[in-house]
């Protein structure tokens, strides 16, 4: 599988990354070489290998259903660039 300009543009848009025309060419090559590596790895026979969701051979630990936190509204709000009425404000988005 090879990557073309439009693939890179789409991926960049989905990740909300702005890239220049020069960078675009770099990415076509560098990401393309990663895919080439993946192609190469796919030659390995994996018939008897279970798909892996996580490299750690462990299971998820569970948390008791209890409220353990206190209200840190003011501290967190102070980190926000803009806030009002206890809300974080962001540039207007509407569907």
């Amino acid at each position: 599988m090879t990557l073309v300009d439009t693939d890179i543009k789409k991926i960049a848009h989905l990740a909300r990354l702005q890239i220049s025309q020069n960078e675009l060419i770099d990415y076509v090559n560098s990401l393309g070489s990663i895919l080439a590596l993946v192609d190469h790895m796919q030659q390995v026979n994996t018939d008897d290998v279970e798909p892996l969701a996580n490299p750690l051979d462990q299971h998820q630990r569970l948390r008791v259903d209890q409220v353990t936190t206190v209200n840190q509204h003011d501290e967190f709000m102070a980190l926000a660039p803009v806030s009002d009425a206890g809300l974080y404000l962001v540039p207007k988005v509407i569907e």
Partner: protein
Amino acid sequence: MSWEVVIGLEIHAQLATRSKLFSGAAVTFGAIPNTHATLVDLGMPGALPVLNESALKMAVQFGVAIDAEIKQHSVFTRKNYFYPDLPKGYQTSQMDEPIVGQGYVDIQLDHSRCKRIGVTRAHLEEDAGKSLHENFTGMTGIDLNRSSTPLLEIVSEPDMRSAAEAVAYMRKIHSIVTTLGICDGNMAEGSMRCDANVSIRPVGAVKLGTRTELKNINSFRFVERAIMLEAERQINLLEAGGVVVQETRLYDSEHNTTRSMRSKEEANDYRYFPCPDLLPVHIDDDYIANIRAQLPELPDQRCQRFIDVYGLSEYDASVLSANRSMADYFEVVQRCCNDPKASANWIMGELTKYLNEHHIDIADAPISAPQLGQLLKRIADNTIHGNAAKILFEALWHSDDDVDKIIVNKGLKQLSDVGAIETMVDEVISTHVDQVQQYILAPAPRRDRMLGFFVGRVMQASKGAANPSQVNKLLLQKLNRLN
């Protein structure tokens, strides 16, 4: 051409946990914005999620209740998209390996027909925050209290063929999750909402038509209306030579229309991948067996018990058992008066009528189940009769007084003293000479109707306290003797 509607539903049930799916913040509704959001819910770098054991248990309870395959191994995945009320830039969900696999529920279509609807899967995921677009010039306000609230997304097969079937299915899911106690079922507060996938095809066709997805419907009534509208829109479109475009549409309940949500179309590339912050979830056979053993009586089992033990009709039993509060109410009423049929009639009749008129849920009914039971007991032991019972019911609706006290205060006690009633009957006969004459001359079929006049007068004279059937009997005896 005749068309067939094909519907599949995705229902989001908010799980009734104390804390969130991945953090120790409280799950609340209507709290002061951003007071129940931790670093995890805010998506701060380095903050790590830990799975809530109750949410996992509730998902398994649901799976067992719909006879589904429970996956011993399940995986959380990231569903990536950008929106300000999703600060991490992804929703933690499940994709290829959900906790609950294929199951089913049976829905009652009418008095006799039942239909099985397949449930494809159910998986755990977190809710997003809330965006508030009003009151901030050029800005949007973000409240992250709802962020990481646990949801169970229940995906059906495209097995429904009408809006009515979709509603019946949704009601069934509602009744299962509320019976299990894993969701409060409060649709007005968004505890249960649904997306509907709707397509149409010519009757008899095998291939499915292009579907549209109706987003965020939050009441049974809106599900029905939105689906009917959308099916009609698609039929009109195809019959005019157009094509249905696969898209997400929003149901606007105020204007009763559906409209396209164009902004989301291009974003439908979620790039799912396993979440590296969460390990695979593993549960063993004992865990599942334990939950199965502790499952409460489910709506279908309760319905069957109402038929077997109380002798209710299938229809009455299915109506009463469909809603947990109503079923509980019924059982208390019937325990008080020991008359299941009368209990069913009064709950499905008078009580439901009043509740609907006042838009009150049965759980908040102003007449308690023991009160209604006591009322029915007083009908059964002949203390009051039908008319007085309705007056009593009305009085109970407005006051918390004891049933027997109201009977005394309002003079509702039935007069069964034959002597007293006889005196009143004689009085009415002797003061209405003309009417009595007409009655005697009338042919038998007309007499029935004329008798009502005399019954009415006697009831009036007794101020409604006389037993109408006794009045009837005495009047007939006396009038026929005059022949």
